[in-house]
């Protein structure tokens, strides 16, 4: 349970957060949205005990500022901008594992599910990795631990579709953990959450629930028929994990539920080529494996 009461923050004369009151029950997934400068990152830093602030923040009854180790040992954090750490990936994961009481093997396993072989990049400086690889390492470091709260600042921004799908699955597996995800665009993270909080100029201007359709852990099977084989379309379809038939005109595969809008965006960009598009929801849970057409 996370409680924020009258949380405010000033930088000099500028008031960045103004009387924020939010309760986040255990297991709830909250999208924190707002334009640049709305106060999302500042609020995260207050919740992580990094900023002094007015008002009161409690995570499971504890103040993250004064009880930082007790609170932060249950918090997984992925920053929006990867820190420019010169240390090798192996040293970074070792440091995170050592200081958070986790096992490096668990982090490597999460990275593998995101499509990243940690052993292959173990000696490479973290700062020299691509944006997507850095993101995967940071996600692996955050999700490869036992956490009750995940604070994710644009976690899927640099990920390819396959890694995004793996991330959604990983988040779905942590149903008991509360989650706060930030983005300046709601459509990017709406499928991940069941509640939306919008900040504007440091104030909460919207606090609403989100429909669960196509939520975390769901899969959509897809089939696309194109008028002719096309190289550019083929490359993009392959990135989405679709496989062609022998003639290259029929493509099929599956996309993660939370990614379905992005997938339709991909299809829309090639609409001049597409003759037929079929997309069917199939629950990720075997108990509800009956497909339903949408």
């Amino acid at each position, binding site marked *: 349970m996370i409680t924020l009461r009258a949380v405010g923050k000033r930088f000099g004369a500028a008031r960045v957060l103004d009387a924020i009151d939010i309760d986040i029950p255990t297991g709830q997934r909250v999208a924190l949205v707002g334009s640049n400068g709305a106060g999302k990152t500042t609020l995260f830093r207050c919740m992580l005990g*990094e*900023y002094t602030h007015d008002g009161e923040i409690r995570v499971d009854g504890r103040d993250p500022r004064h009880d930082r180790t007790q609170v932060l040992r249950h918090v997984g954090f992925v920053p929006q901008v990867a820190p420019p750490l010169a240390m090798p990936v192996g040293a970074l994961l070792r440091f995170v594992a050592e200081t958070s009481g986790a096992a490096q093997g*668990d982090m490597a396993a999460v990275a593998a599910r995101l499509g990243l072989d940690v052993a292959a990049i173990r000696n490479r400086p973290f700062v020299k990795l691509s944006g997507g690889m850095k993101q995967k390492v940071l996600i692996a470091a955050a999700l490869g631990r036992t956490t009750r709260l995940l604070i994710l600042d644009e976690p899927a921004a640099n990920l390819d579709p396959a890694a995004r799908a793996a991330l959604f699955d990983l988040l779905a597996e942590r149903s008991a953990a509360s989650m706060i995800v930030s983005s300046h665009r709601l459509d990017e993270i709406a499928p991940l959450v069941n509640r939306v909080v919008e900040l504007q100029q440091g104030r909460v201007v919207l606090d609403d629930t989100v429909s669960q359709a196509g939520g975390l852990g769901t899969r959509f099977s897809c089939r696309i028929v194109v008028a002719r084989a096309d190289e550019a379309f083929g490359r993009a379809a392959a990135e989405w994990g679709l496989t062609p038939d022998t003639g290259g005109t029929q493509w099929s595969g599956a996309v993660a539920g939370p990614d379905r809008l992005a997938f339709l965006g991909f299809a829309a960009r090639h609409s001049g080529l597409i003759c037929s598009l079929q997309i069917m929801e199939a629950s990720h849970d075997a108990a509800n494996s009956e497909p339903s057409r949408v």
Partner: protein
Amino acid sequence: MLAINPAYADEAMTRDGAAARGWLSFRATFRLEIAEALRSRWFAAYAATFFALTGLLLVFGLTESRVLGFTGLSRTLVTYTQLAMAIAPVFVLISTVRALAGDREAGVFEYVLALPLSLAGWYAGRVFGRFALAIAPVAGALVAALVYGGIRGVAIPWREFLFDMGLLASLIFAFIGVGFLVSTLTRKVDTAQTFAFLIWLALLLGLDLVLLGALIRNHAPLETVVAAAMLNPLQVFRVASMMLFDPQLVLLGPTAYAIFDIFGRELFLVWAFLYPIALGALSAGLGYWALSRSDLP
């Protein structure tokens, strides 16, 4: 099922557990600080400077030449100590504030301090990591000189070596502490560097030959002159480091006479070793106090 270190289990979050996590945070940060520096250019340049300096001093110092009464390794040690006093403090100050303020500015603090580290353990790990890094090349180069001198059959001045190493370690710790204080009180690298440089410049100007000489010429009260000298870690180091080599204080300025007259040699020696350590500890402590009450990133 994810593995979890027993030190982080719920039942371990006691006072004893907090101490254990503080030590764990210190150890992990200390090791990381060392590993990061060993990959960095500043440390390579810093270490190369001292080893090159020693090499040059050995080449020109182990001959039969006599300079101001010193020969062989004693001469090398005297020259090295004085040069180290000129180089190490500014290098330590600038590299420390650059690393800390730079990490803060680049967002490293945001990520690292979101991990369940004890803030005190992390801070102490960085302080002592920096200290180890700063002293290692200074001591390493000197040890290399002793080994080389031993191979050449030159008499090794053990007493002077240990004495000066202690003084150098004490001096470096003082500047590490000051560097951490400056870094925590400033938010930007440029500001931190400017403050660090001005502090070093002020202490340099406060040496016997500059400010103190001017104070004496202008008939400033003796207490003022002595206080200015005793509070300047560079001046304290300079006087103390020459005591063994120059008991008659031929090479030192007028302040040294006044200091010895007032305090005596033994008391001054105690001051020379302990004051810089206390200054460094106090500065680093103030830095931690300021950091723990301000925004961390």
